[in-house]
């Protein structure tokens, strides 16, 4: 029997990027907000102490800050013909845990999607015909890029993003990305200072006629005070971003941009080490009553609330909806149902150049988003008329670190161990440079999420089951971009190079990306989307679900910028529309 707590206006599930932004926006509107977070409280000075934060073994290898499979695993398989098995360890992707979520240990690459990405189905159908995308389950988002601009802008200013705009109100800006969709304002900070590797990459690709530009970065190029009055420090280029918390207040996260203001608000409360088990929705009802959660002592509570905002990691947003009976589970056989639909990922490939000894890249001078990008082959930047795929990839030269355990590049033909290997790692460390293609991932009928029929968690709840493999379209896209990378490699003058090629049979035991998307997608049609364009559940009207789970498909870009923008959009919708008529759907089904 759970203990019933006094009601709140809003309960927010998860206190990462989206939970913090939504909580702050709603608390600012005067609502009583409680955020319930499964993991621990985390704070820069205490938990990301500059004296031990650059500990590669603890954080990068042993993955100290991440969700551990013993707390919650998921089961995976490539297709419905296989039996899914539980991951014993999160390796292929690394969901966060604790306050700040995955936003604590991200690299900081902060993109806007293109206007065409938001209206992808309409755009591609108009341009290339419906036949071209018939094997894919591509959908429009129900929001336009122009509508997203203001939300992107707020997130960029909150986080102090350092970059160079490519297109301000239709005017192409020198030094930025010429393929960028129009934006209303410049980034709040200029790009970071370039290191040698990305500078060389820009030089090579520029000479080839491509359009390199500085990758937008949440590692700050200068000291900054954000609109909430919170101060951040200039990045020190220490190269400990991804998998680490930032000790220097230089990487945007909930801790460095929102929480100091949020935690002082008397109408906000955070409860950490409390795991939400279920959103309570009476059978057939259109309103949730609140959430049931369990604290670290095993005590169970019911927290009544007028509004429930689910802000956990993408996978766990979808799972919580399924466990709570919010929306109809997706069935890949019939193609019906919405929750679990359109799970997407990222289709990546890498290139490594091996130069003569005269090149010294000093890879240890780095930051998670310090680099150069060519978007010439991303999204629909290039004409696909004569190609056999849709989508594309950003080609990024972002040597995010030169940490000693993991940064051991060796040229092809080097033994995997022994004296020769050791010598090669010494000889190659300074003179090797990598870049990669981060490709779009488009939905298919067979890639989806549901509840596992066999495996359960510590509380007896079914685990989430992921069924995923790279769609043929995405592999064709990725191979095309790998060919383009090979052209760059050839032009680089490197004495040797390798170009990887993505292939069928996605493997969860090799790290590829923590850009899991979809499963609780937004859209204008309740039969093909779980959420309306304001991230409100079509089925349970006081439930909003915020995160990359809302992406109908994923672009060839890191998702955090869009996730942050969507958090502002959902919060605005609640503040400005929902509160005027609580319980009503913001869009008529």
């Amino acid at each position, binding site marked *: 029997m759970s203990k019933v707590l006094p009601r709140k206006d809003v309960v927010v599930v998860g206190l990462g990027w989206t939970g913090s932004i939504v909580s702050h926006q709603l608390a600012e509107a005067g609502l009583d907000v409680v955020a319930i977070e499964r993991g621990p409280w985390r704070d820069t*000075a*205490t938990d990301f*102490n*500059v*004296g031990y934060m650059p500990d590669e073994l603890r954080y990068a290898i042993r993955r100290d800050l991440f969700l551990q499979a013993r707390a919650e695993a998921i089961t995976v398989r490539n297709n419905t013909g296989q039996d899914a098995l539980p991951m014993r360890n999160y390796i292929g992707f690394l969901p966060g845990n604790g306050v700040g979520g995955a936003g604590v240990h991200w690299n900081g690459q902060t993109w806007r999607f293109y206007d065409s990405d938001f209206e992808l189905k309409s755009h591609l159908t108009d341009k290339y015909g419906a036949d071209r995308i018939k094997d894919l389950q591509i959908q429009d988002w129900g929001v336009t890029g122009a509508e997203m601009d203001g939300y992107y802008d707020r997130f960029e200013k909150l986080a102090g993003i350092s970059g160079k705009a490519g297109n301000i109100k239709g005017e192409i800006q020198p030094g930025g990305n010429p393929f960028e969709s129009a934006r209303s304002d410049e980034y709040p900070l200029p790009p970071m200072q370039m290191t040698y590797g990305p500078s060389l990459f820009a030089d090579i690709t520029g000479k080839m006629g491509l359009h390199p530009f500085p990758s937008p970065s949440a590692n700050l190029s200068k*000291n900054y005070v954000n609109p909430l*009055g919170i*101060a951040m420090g200039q990045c020190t280029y220490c190269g400990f971003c991804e998998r680490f918390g930032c000790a*220097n*207040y230089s990487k945007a996260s909930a801790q460095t941009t929102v929480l100091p203001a949020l935690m002082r608000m008397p109408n906000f409360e955070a409860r950490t080490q409390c795991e939400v088990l279920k959103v309570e929705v009476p059978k057939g009802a259109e309103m949730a009553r609140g959430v049931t959660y369990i604290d670290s002592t095993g005590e169970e509570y019911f927290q009544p609330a007028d509004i429930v905002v689910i802000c956990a990691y993408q996978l766990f947003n979808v799972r919580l909806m399924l466990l709570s009976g919010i929306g109809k589970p997706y069935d890949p056989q019939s193609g019906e149902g919405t929750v679990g639909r359109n799970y997407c990922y990222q289709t990546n490939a890498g290139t490594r150049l091996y130069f003569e000894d005269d090149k010294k890249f000093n890879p240890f001078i780095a930051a998670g988003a310090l680099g150069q990008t060519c978007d010439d082959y991303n999204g629909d930047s290039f004409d696909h008329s004569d190609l056999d795929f849709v989508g594309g990839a950003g080609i990024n030269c972002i040597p995010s670190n030169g940490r000693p355990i993991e940064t051991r590049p060796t040229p092809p033909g080097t033994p995997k161990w022994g004296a020769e290997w050791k010598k090669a790692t010494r000889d190659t460390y300074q003179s090797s440079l990598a870049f990669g293609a981060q490709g779009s991932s488009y939905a298919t009928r067979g890639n989806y999420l549901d509840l596992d029929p066999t495996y359960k968690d510590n509380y007896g709840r079914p685990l989430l089951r992921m069924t995923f493999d790279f769609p043929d379209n995405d592999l064709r896209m990725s191979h095309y971009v790998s060919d383009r990378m090979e052209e760059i490699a050839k032009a680089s003058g490197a004495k040797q190079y390798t170009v990887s090629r993505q292939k069928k049979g996605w493997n969860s035991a090799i790290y590829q990306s923590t850009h899991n998307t979809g499963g609780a997608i937004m859209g204008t049609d309740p039969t093909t989307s779980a959420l309306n364009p304001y991230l409100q559940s079509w089925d349970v009207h006081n439930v909003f679900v915020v995160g990359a789970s809302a992406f109908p498909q994923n672009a060839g870009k890191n998702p955090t910028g869009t996730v942050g923008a969507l958090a502002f959009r959902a919060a605005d919708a609640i503040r400005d529309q929902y509160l005027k008529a609580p319980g009503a759907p913001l869009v008529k089904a």
Partner: protein
Amino acid sequence: MKRLLSLALAASALVAATPGFAEELANQVMNGRYQAILGDCSGCHTVSGGKYLAGGEALVTPFGKLVPPNITPDKATGIGNWSYQDFRNAMTRGVGHDGKHLYPAMPYPNYSMIPDRDLKDLWTYLKTVTPVDRKVVANQLPFPFNQRVVMRGWNMINFTPKTFKADPDKSPEWNRGAYIVQGPGHCSACHSPKTLLGADKSSGAYTGAELQGWYAPNITGAKRRGIGDWSEDQIVRYLKTGTDGKTTASGPMAEAVTNSTSKMTDADLKSIAVYIKSLPASEPAAPKPLAADDARMTAGAAIYRDNCSACHGAGGEGAKNLFPALKGDAVLMQDSVAVPARAVLFGSKGAQTAAAPTRPGMPALGWRLNDTQVADVLSYVRNSWGNAGAPVAASDVATVRKQGR
């Protein structure tokens, strides 16, 4: 603001019959509340995170432990049974409800300057505070100091009740600042050196003093150790937000900013700035800085580079509102290294205010730097970028480490 209104409303409800009187009472409550801010009552009488004015954390004095009592209007454990006269006696004469002498950790020598009208309003306000049933054993001193009667002798030597005398040659602003600093603000309680008996020394007022393992720095017009080089705006900003952009309030001052100065009016903060800038500069001449090739400096430079420079900058320049600039920092120039040594050993958190909500934290490094290393890095920062200060000995650091957090 909501809270203020409800207090005012509660007060007016008591006397709902006569609107004029109710308004007057509301004004008294509001003014009384502001007096509680000026006097920073909650700084001592509220436990961090605890119920407002229901008793504070123990004060460790050279004579032993004193615990600030519950001053909510609870009858059993607070001051609910006191009369205004009792309160006035306590505030201005250091004599409590039961006729027992208070210890001067309660700054009645300063509070005795508060005029009757403000004191009455403060009393009116205190009666509107939520009563809390919380028993506090205030006197935890050892014998003979636990004998309150000894305070009679102390008072004879050290205390004459004062009224504030305005200096007609100075501006009203200066006088207002002087009143706040000497009177309710009781700045001398921390910033003035003490006699062996724990009273303010007659000379060297506001030139800095040790207390509770911290060191409250010089706040006179001294250029190197004090605030002589600060602009009035800088001082106002520091008191209002906890940082002037360069340095950051830490330790007990961070609490004073959070609970008291950040809530004062801008006009009062400006007055304080005008007054303290006029305090006679008092500091010894700067010593010759340690030579850059001194072994302590070379060791300190290496430690600084590895542990400190990422935030405080290779040139000690810091980052606005976030990381204190060490170049030219007055706290480093005091005789005592208690504050910087504590920061390095145990870490430190700044004040958090509405205008500067970041509350940056200095991480603890005492677990990875030994006393000699801490001493060397402190010697280095005290003698770099134009700073000049006596070298720090490992034994100084050991003392601070032993005192603990």
